[in-house]
């Protein structure tokens, strides 16, 4: 579903991604781990089209919601989203003055328009979103507030999950979704990610910690270092990393 080939990118004069290769199949869950500053979060931003990053080489193909393969790097940020890419942000941006419910409807309707289906009016969307929040088991009170502006750190992360469930993307890249969550919130968010996963979509979870991956169990774990993937393994490596850190992998990767 997603094929990343030799992807390199820089911000300003600093080269951050240095040849990332990754294949993601529909129905799979991937984790990306790695030390601070290794470029994990940058990968998410580059895929989504963040204006601060410049792609210096490589390709990123997504088998999008319309069925055809699209080169993400040639699309505007909003088009990438419409084709089925979702980024769950580590620090969701606050947009005061924009009501969360209205934002969700605008976002959903933009997708409807893209697929040529009828947009939902206010009342229809309220029904639609009520089903979503009730099946998630959280989020209903966030809807009346301003987008992320009146939400706590944990609520912002849950709000990202609401957006994920509304947009139902092909590929969700969840960037440190677990950071800043207490144990209960983590269980809630992890449980929701499991419920929203199906055979037609895929996850890439960028994380530092074992704890999210114990709930949302990845099929593959990629270890990131110095702007590229140095090791791919099954999830048993998560425990090993938790115990031993990254140094042994880095040394091995560089030798």
């Amino acid at each position, binding site marked *: 579903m997603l094929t990343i080939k030799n992807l390199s990118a820089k911000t300003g004069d600093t080269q951050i991604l240095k040849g990332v290769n990754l294949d993601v199949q529909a129905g799979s869950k991937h984790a990306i781990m790695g030390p601070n500053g290794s470029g994990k979060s940058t990968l998410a931003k580059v895929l989504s089209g963040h204006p601060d990053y410049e792609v210096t080489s490589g390709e990123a193909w997504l088998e999008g919601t319309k069925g055809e393969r699209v080169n993400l790097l040639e699309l505007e940020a*909003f088009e990438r989203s419409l084709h089925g890419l979702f980024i769950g942000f580590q620090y969701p941006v606050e947009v*005061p003055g924009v009501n969360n419910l209205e934002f969700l409807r605008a976002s959903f309707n933009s997708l409807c328009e893209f697929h040529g289906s009828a947009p939902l009016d206010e009342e229809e969307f309220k029904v639609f979103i009520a089903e979503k929040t009730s099946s998630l088991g959280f989020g209903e009170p966030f809807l009346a507030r301003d987008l992320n502006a009146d939400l706590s750190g944990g609520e912002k992360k849950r709000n990202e999950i609401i*957006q994920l469930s509304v947009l139902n993307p092909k590929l969700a890249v969840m960037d440190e979704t677990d950071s800043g969550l207490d144990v209960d919130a983590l269980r809630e968010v992890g449980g929701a990610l499991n419920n929203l996963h199906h055979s037609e979509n895929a996850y890439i979870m960028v994380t530092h910690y074992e704890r999210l991956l114990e709930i949302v169990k990845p099929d593959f774990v990629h270890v990131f270092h110095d702007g590229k993937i140095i090791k791919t393994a099954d999830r048993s490596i998560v425990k090993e990393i938790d115990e031993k850190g990254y140094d042994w992998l880095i040394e091995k990767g560089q030798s």
Partner: protein
Amino acid sequence: MSFTSSRFHQKEYDAGFVTKVDTDEFPVGLSEEIIALISEKKEEPDFMLDLRMKAYRYWQKQVEPQWADLDIEPIDFQGVRYYAVPKNMDTAPQSLEDVDAEILKTFEKLGIPLSEQKRLTGVAVDAVFDSVSVGTTHQKELAEHGVIFCSISEAVREHPALVKKYLGKVVPYKDNFYTALNTAVFSDGSFCYIPKGVKCPMDLSTYFRINTEGTGQFERTLVIADSGSSVSYLEGCTAPQRDENQLHAAVVELWAEDNASIKYATVQNWYAGNREGKGGIYNFVTKRGLCSGVNSHISWTQVEAGSAITWKYPSCVLKGDNSRGEFYSVALTNNKMQADTGTKMIHIGKNTSSYIISKGISAQESKNSYRGLVKMGKGATGARNFTQCDSMLVGDKCVANTYPVIENQNHTTTIEHEASTSKISEDQLYYLNSRGLSTEQAVSLMINGFCKEVIQKLPLEFSVEAVKLLEMKLEESVG
């Protein structure tokens, strides 16, 4: 990668075209002869000429106000043409057949068709072109309800008693430099009288168009709502794109008797000058409403998106007990525009209330100031005010200021003031982009959110137009 793409090039000012018509123009400059000539052209009664002369003599002794937060090049008032009308139109034409086809086309192009077949339904339009009203629609239907809606020139001739009773009573010519100037030279504008107990059957509107080069527009509007009546009034403004500055100094007076209600909405899109700040309209406007009667209600809604300079403070004098004044404003500045705008709420009567919502959006190198006065007089027992004053900054070279003043002379009042400042950032645009919203949609969502309380006060057709106007102006700025 960046948000800059070809779709966000400098949007043209759609209304910036010039209409080629033969005009009768007075010589440039101002003198008693010019004023006498204006009055003569308009076939005015003597009281009007006297008023103009008094105002002119007073004006000569005044200097321009300097207190606003505006950098203005000195204005050469003798370099302005005070009167220009399309040929053979010194007095408003009897029918649209007498109006130059080019002028009708102009208004049609601006979305205000005047002809019987095409005119807007549900809203009566008075169309003012330079110094003269070229036509007023739906007059007959309105007359059936006793509503008088015509150009102010026609009102001076046809309804002198009403004009004499009310003109200059809410805004006396001595009020300020520009009201004195306007009173001396005003050439046209709209007049409306809603008789006792009548709910005006349709919205009334005036569309102001400046066309001739070097000409100032000095319009005068007077709206009177007699006891128990109500009216909703809209005004729109555009001008051609020119390198020189043009002067627009208007006076609007509203008068509400017992239990009467006036809603006055403006979408101002005068030409604002180019990116470097060259050209554009200097907009010096005095708007004031008097809630004269008990339970009367005046509401100002304005979307100020144009003009190089805006100096404007639509105000309410709350004289009648239990009367209510409202001010809803969005002022947007971009490029090098400057706006100093706000309101005054003068509470005189008992239990009067006022409500102020001001939203300022400044982008690029523009300057946007809110200036407000809430005054509670000794007799205004139980009076209440709520003020909310929000600024939004786009970019880091713009300026937003707020100057709220509260004068309270009694202990039984309640005054609340809230203020905030926020900023549209690239991060916010990116975040919304990443959720499938284009930059246009993202800006629209943010502007709608920010201005919601004001926009929803506009009549529906106007609100759609106003949002589009704001979006267009801002897309230039985030591009």
